[in-house]
Protein backbone atom coordinates (compact mmCIF):
# COMPACT_ATOMS: atom_id res chain seq x y z
CA UNK A 1 0.00 0.00 0.00
CA UNK A 2 1.69 3.18 -1.13
CA UNK A 3 1.07 6.67 0.17
CA UNK A 4 -0.82 7.45 -3.01
CA UNK A 5 -3.19 4.57 -2.39
CA UNK A 6 -3.80 5.64 1.20
CA UNK A 7 -4.59 9.14 0.01
CA UNK A 8 -6.88 7.71 -2.62
CA UNK A 9 -8.82 5.72 -0.01
CA UNK A 10 -9.07 8.71 2.27
CA UNK A 11 -10.43 11.03 -0.42
CA UNK A 12 -12.79 8.43 -1.88
CA UNK A 13 -14.14 7.86 1.61
CA UNK A 14 -14.75 11.60 1.99
CA UNK A 15 -16.40 11.77 -1.43
CA UNK A 16 -18.73 8.86 -0.88
CA UNK A 17 -19.53 9.76 2.73
CA UNK A 18 -20.36 13.32 1.72
CA UNK A 19 -22.54 12.00 -1.07
CA UNK A 20 -24.35 9.61 1.26
CA UNK A 21 -24.96 12.38 3.76
CA UNK A 22 -26.32 14.53 0.93
CA UNK A 23 -28.97 12.01 0.02
CA UNK A 24 -29.86 11.06 3.60
CA UNK A 25 -29.78 14.29 5.60
CA UNK A 26 -33.23 15.51 6.59
CA UNK A 27 -32.11 19.11 6.83
CA UNK A 28 -31.60 20.40 3.32
CA UNK A 29 -28.94 22.90 4.30
CA UNK A 30 -26.95 20.07 5.85
CA UNK A 31 -27.49 18.09 2.68
CA UNK A 32 -26.00 20.98 0.70
CA UNK A 33 -22.98 21.04 3.03
CA UNK A 34 -22.60 17.30 2.50
CA UNK A 35 -22.65 17.95 -1.22
CA UNK A 36 -19.88 20.52 -0.79
CA UNK A 37 -17.75 18.00 1.14
CA UNK A 38 -18.34 15.45 -1.58
CA UNK A 39 -17.40 17.95 -4.29
CA UNK A 40 -14.23 18.82 -2.39
CA UNK A 41 -13.41 15.13 -2.23
CA UNK A 42 -13.84 14.88 -5.99
CA UNK A 43 -11.52 17.86 -6.38
CA UNK A 44 -8.92 16.01 -4.32
CA UNK A 45 -9.34 12.97 -6.57
CA UNK A 46 -8.69 15.22 -9.58
CA UNK A 47 -5.55 16.45 -7.88
CA UNK A 48 -4.46 12.84 -7.36
CA UNK A 49 -5.04 12.29 -11.07
CA UNK A 50 -2.80 15.31 -11.75
CA UNK A 51 -5.63 17.21 -13.42
CA UNK A 52 -4.65 20.33 -11.47
CA UNK A 53 -6.72 22.76 -13.47
CA UNK A 54 -9.89 20.73 -13.13
CA UNK A 55 -9.25 20.30 -9.41
CA UNK A 56 -9.15 24.06 -8.94
CA UNK A 57 -12.08 24.52 -11.32
CA UNK A 58 -14.05 22.00 -9.29
CA UNK A 59 -13.54 24.12 -6.18
CA UNK A 60 -14.01 27.45 -7.96
CA UNK A 61 -17.03 26.52 -10.01
CA UNK A 62 -18.79 23.66 -8.27
CA UNK A 63 -18.26 24.83 -4.70
CA UNK A 64 -17.87 28.53 -5.40
CA UNK A 65 -20.78 28.92 -7.80
CA UNK A 66 -23.09 25.95 -8.24
CA UNK A 67 -23.20 25.01 -4.55
CA UNK A 68 -23.91 28.62 -3.67
CA UNK A 69 -26.76 28.67 -6.17
CA UNK A 70 -28.15 25.50 -4.58
CA UNK A 71 -27.86 26.95 -1.06
CA UNK A 72 -29.66 30.08 -2.25
CA UNK A 73 -32.45 27.93 -3.61
CA UNK A 74 -32.59 25.97 -0.34
CA UNK A 75 -32.94 29.21 1.57
CA UNK A 76 -35.49 30.70 -0.82
CA UNK A 77 -37.75 27.67 -0.77
CA UNK A 78 -37.55 27.01 2.94
CA UNK A 79 -40.62 26.62 5.08
CA UNK A 80 -41.45 23.40 3.33
CA UNK A 81 -38.08 21.72 3.43
CA UNK A 82 -38.40 20.76 7.07
CA UNK A 83 -41.35 18.52 6.45
CA UNK A 84 -40.86 14.96 5.36
CA UNK A 85 -37.99 15.37 2.94
CA UNK A 86 -37.87 11.65 2.20
CA UNK A 87 -40.58 9.24 1.22
CA UNK A 88 -41.80 6.59 3.64
CA UNK A 89 -39.41 3.85 4.70
CA UNK A 90 -40.98 1.37 2.24
CA UNK A 91 -40.06 3.38 -0.84
CA UNK A 92 -36.79 4.14 0.84
CA UNK A 93 -35.84 0.46 1.12
CA UNK A 94 -37.01 -0.39 -2.38
CA UNK A 95 -34.96 2.48 -3.80
CA UNK A 96 -31.93 1.41 -1.82
CA UNK A 97 -32.24 -2.13 -3.16
CA UNK A 98 -32.62 -0.86 -6.72
CA UNK A 99 -29.54 1.30 -6.35
CA UNK A 100 -27.52 -1.56 -4.89
CA UNK A 101 -28.58 -3.72 -7.84
CA UNK A 102 -27.50 -0.96 -10.20
CA UNK A 103 -24.17 -0.83 -8.40
CA UNK A 104 -23.75 -4.59 -8.73
CA UNK A 105 -24.51 -4.39 -12.45
CA UNK A 106 -22.02 -1.54 -12.90
CA UNK A 107 -19.31 -3.32 -10.95
CA UNK A 108 -19.73 -6.64 -12.76
CA UNK A 109 -19.51 -4.85 -16.09
CA UNK A 110 -16.50 -3.00 -14.82
CA UNK A 111 -14.63 -6.13 -13.81
CA UNK A 112 -15.10 -7.75 -17.20
CA UNK A 113 -12.40 -5.55 -18.61
CA UNK A 114 -8.73 -5.60 -17.91
CA UNK A 115 -8.06 -2.01 -16.91
CA UNK A 116 -4.49 -0.68 -16.94
CA UNK A 117 -2.76 -0.74 -13.57
CA UNK A 118 -0.58 2.28 -14.23
CA UNK A 119 -0.76 5.28 -16.49
CA UNK A 120 0.61 4.95 -20.02
CA UNK A 121 2.54 8.21 -19.96
CA UNK A 122 3.34 11.16 -17.74
CA UNK A 123 1.13 14.24 -17.84
CA UNK A 124 2.70 16.78 -20.20
CA UNK A 125 4.06 19.85 -18.43
CA UNK A 126 1.99 22.19 -20.58
CA UNK A 127 -1.28 20.32 -20.10
CA UNK A 128 -3.28 23.50 -19.39
CA UNK A 129 -2.01 25.22 -22.53
CA UNK A 130 -2.84 22.05 -24.45
CA UNK A 131 -6.34 22.13 -23.05
CA UNK A 132 -6.71 25.76 -24.08
CA UNK A 133 -5.40 25.05 -27.55
CA UNK A 134 -7.67 22.07 -28.09
CA UNK A 135 -10.71 24.10 -27.01
CA UNK A 136 -10.24 26.62 -29.82
CA UNK A 137 -8.76 24.22 -32.36
CA UNK A 138 -11.08 24.08 -35.40
CA UNK A 139 -10.35 20.37 -35.85
CA UNK A 140 -11.15 19.60 -32.22
CA UNK A 141 -13.65 21.28 -29.92
CA UNK A 142 -14.28 24.73 -31.26
CA UNK A 143 -17.89 23.94 -32.14
CA UNK A 144 -18.89 22.59 -28.71
CA UNK A 145 -16.95 25.50 -27.25
CA UNK A 146 -19.01 28.13 -29.02
CA UNK A 147 -22.20 26.13 -28.52
CA UNK A 148 -21.42 26.06 -24.80
CA UNK A 149 -21.46 29.85 -24.73
CA UNK A 150 -24.83 29.85 -26.48
CA UNK A 151 -26.07 27.25 -24.00
CA UNK A 152 -24.96 29.44 -21.11
CA UNK A 153 -26.70 32.48 -22.54
CA UNK A 154 -29.83 30.45 -23.17
CA UNK A 155 -29.73 29.09 -19.63
CA UNK A 156 -29.33 32.57 -18.22
CA UNK A 157 -32.15 34.05 -20.27
CA UNK A 158 -34.45 31.14 -19.57
CA UNK A 159 -33.84 30.90 -15.86
CA UNK A 160 -33.87 34.66 -15.32
CA UNK A 161 -37.19 34.77 -17.15
CA UNK A 162 -38.63 31.93 -15.08
CA UNK A 163 -37.35 33.16 -11.75
CA UNK A 164 -38.21 36.83 -12.22
CA UNK A 165 -41.05 38.35 -10.24
CA UNK A 166 -43.91 38.87 -12.62
CA UNK A 167 -46.18 41.44 -11.13
Amino acid at each position, binding site marked *: MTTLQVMFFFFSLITVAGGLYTVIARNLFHAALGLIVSLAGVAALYALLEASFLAAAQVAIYIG*AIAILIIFAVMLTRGVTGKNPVKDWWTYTITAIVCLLLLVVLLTTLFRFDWPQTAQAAVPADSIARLGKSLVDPSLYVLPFEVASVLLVAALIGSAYIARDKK
Partner: protein
Amino acid sequence: MLQDFAFIGIFLLVAGALGVLPLVLAWMVRPAKPNPIKSSTYECGVETFGDAWVQFKVQYYVYALVFVVFDIETIFLFPWAVAYHQLPLFAVLEMVLFIFILAGALVYAWRKGDLEWV
Protein backbone atom coordinates in the same frame (compact mmCIF):
# COMPACT_ATOMS: atom_id res chain seq x y z
CA MET B 1 3.13 18.25 -9.20
CA LEU B 2 1.76 15.74 -6.71
CA GLN B 3 4.29 16.94 -4.15
CA ASP B 4 2.97 20.45 -4.52
CA PHE B 5 -0.54 19.25 -3.94
CA ALA B 6 0.66 17.29 -0.93
CA PHE B 7 2.00 20.56 0.42
CA ILE B 8 -1.36 22.21 -0.14
CA GLY B 9 -3.04 19.35 1.68
CA ILE B 10 -0.65 19.76 4.61
CA PHE B 11 -1.16 23.50 4.56
CA LEU B 12 -4.92 22.93 4.66
CA LEU B 13 -4.46 20.90 7.83
CA VAL B 14 -2.15 23.52 9.34
CA ALA B 15 -4.55 26.34 8.50
CA GLY B 16 -7.42 24.38 10.04
CA ALA B 17 -5.33 23.72 13.15
CA LEU B 18 -4.43 27.40 13.43
CA GLY B 19 -8.15 28.12 13.31
CA VAL B 20 -9.04 25.52 15.92
CA LEU B 21 -6.16 26.30 18.28
CA PRO B 22 -7.36 29.76 19.41
CA LEU B 23 -10.84 28.32 19.95
CA VAL B 24 -9.44 25.60 22.18
CA LEU B 25 -7.31 28.15 24.06
CA ALA B 26 -10.32 30.39 24.51
CA TRP B 27 -12.41 27.45 25.63
CA MET B 28 -9.92 26.79 28.43
CA VAL B 29 -9.60 30.40 29.52
CA ARG B 30 -12.93 32.06 29.03
CA PRO B 31 -15.79 32.21 31.52
CA ALA B 32 -18.99 30.34 30.65
CA LYS B 33 -22.10 31.50 32.43
CA PRO B 34 -24.90 31.12 29.95
CA ASN B 35 -28.45 32.01 30.79
CA PRO B 36 -31.58 31.91 28.62
CA ILE B 37 -31.75 35.68 28.16
CA LYS B 38 -28.10 35.92 27.19
CA SER B 39 -28.30 33.21 24.59
CA SER B 40 -31.53 34.41 23.08
CA THR B 41 -31.39 35.68 19.53
CA TYR B 42 -29.86 39.13 19.26
CA GLU B 43 -32.34 40.97 17.10
CA CYS B 44 -33.97 43.78 19.03
CA GLY B 45 -35.36 44.64 22.40
CA VAL B 46 -38.55 42.66 22.21
CA GLU B 47 -38.62 38.91 21.97
CA THR B 48 -38.07 37.32 18.61
CA PHE B 49 -41.09 35.76 17.02
CA GLY B 50 -41.09 33.21 14.25
CA ASP B 51 -37.85 31.68 13.11
CA ALA B 52 -35.29 33.34 10.94
CA TRP B 53 -37.25 32.38 7.90
CA VAL B 54 -38.84 35.41 6.49
CA GLN B 55 -39.26 35.19 2.75
CA PHE B 56 -36.40 36.65 0.79
CA LYS B 57 -36.45 38.27 -2.57
CA VAL B 58 -35.75 36.29 -5.70
CA GLN B 59 -33.45 39.12 -6.73
CA TYR B 60 -30.62 37.46 -4.81
CA TYR B 61 -31.07 34.34 -6.87
CA VAL B 62 -30.98 36.25 -10.14
CA TYR B 63 -27.68 37.86 -9.15
CA ALA B 64 -26.27 34.46 -8.30
CA LEU B 65 -27.50 33.24 -11.67
CA VAL B 66 -25.71 35.91 -13.69
CA PHE B 67 -22.62 35.25 -11.57
CA VAL B 68 -22.71 31.52 -12.29
CA VAL B 69 -22.86 32.14 -16.01
CA PHE B 70 -19.84 34.40 -15.92
CA ASP B 71 -17.93 32.29 -13.42
CA ILE B 72 -18.37 29.14 -15.44
CA GLU B 73 -16.74 30.74 -18.45
CA THR B 74 -13.47 30.87 -16.51
CA ILE B 75 -13.08 27.16 -17.12
CA PHE B 76 -12.61 28.00 -20.81
CA LEU B 77 -11.10 31.42 -20.41
CA PHE B 78 -8.12 30.46 -18.27
CA PRO B 79 -6.76 27.56 -20.36
CA TRP B 80 -7.24 29.77 -23.38
CA ALA B 81 -5.39 32.62 -21.67
CA VAL B 82 -2.50 30.31 -20.78
CA ALA B 83 -2.23 29.19 -24.39
CA TYR B 84 -2.80 32.71 -25.74
CA HIS B 85 0.71 33.41 -27.00
CA GLN B 86 0.80 30.15 -28.94
CA LEU B 87 -2.53 30.66 -30.65
CA PRO B 88 -3.19 31.85 -34.20
CA LEU B 89 -5.28 34.96 -34.74
CA PHE B 90 -8.26 32.85 -35.66
CA ALA B 91 -8.30 31.15 -32.26
CA VAL B 92 -8.16 34.52 -30.54
CA LEU B 93 -11.15 35.69 -32.56
CA GLU B 94 -13.05 32.60 -31.43
CA MET B 95 -12.62 33.63 -27.81
CA VAL B 96 -13.67 37.17 -28.71
CA LEU B 97 -16.82 35.71 -30.21
CA PHE B 98 -17.33 33.69 -27.04
CA ILE B 99 -17.00 36.83 -24.95
CA PHE B 100 -19.41 38.70 -27.20
CA ILE B 101 -22.03 35.99 -26.84
CA LEU B 102 -21.67 36.13 -23.07
CA ALA B 103 -21.86 39.91 -23.20
CA GLY B 104 -25.20 39.32 -24.89
CA ALA B 105 -26.34 37.62 -21.68
CA LEU B 106 -25.24 40.65 -19.71
CA VAL B 107 -27.08 42.99 -22.08
CA TYR B 108 -30.23 40.89 -21.75
CA ALA B 109 -30.11 40.93 -17.95
CA TRP B 110 -29.44 44.65 -18.01
CA ARG B 111 -32.27 45.49 -20.38
CA LYS B 112 -34.74 43.36 -18.45
CA GLY B 113 -33.85 45.12 -15.23
CA ASP B 114 -32.41 42.07 -13.52
CA LEU B 115 -29.40 44.07 -12.46
CA GLU B 116 -31.47 46.68 -10.63
CA TRP B 117 -31.41 46.34 -6.87
CA VAL B 118 -35.00 46.89 -5.81
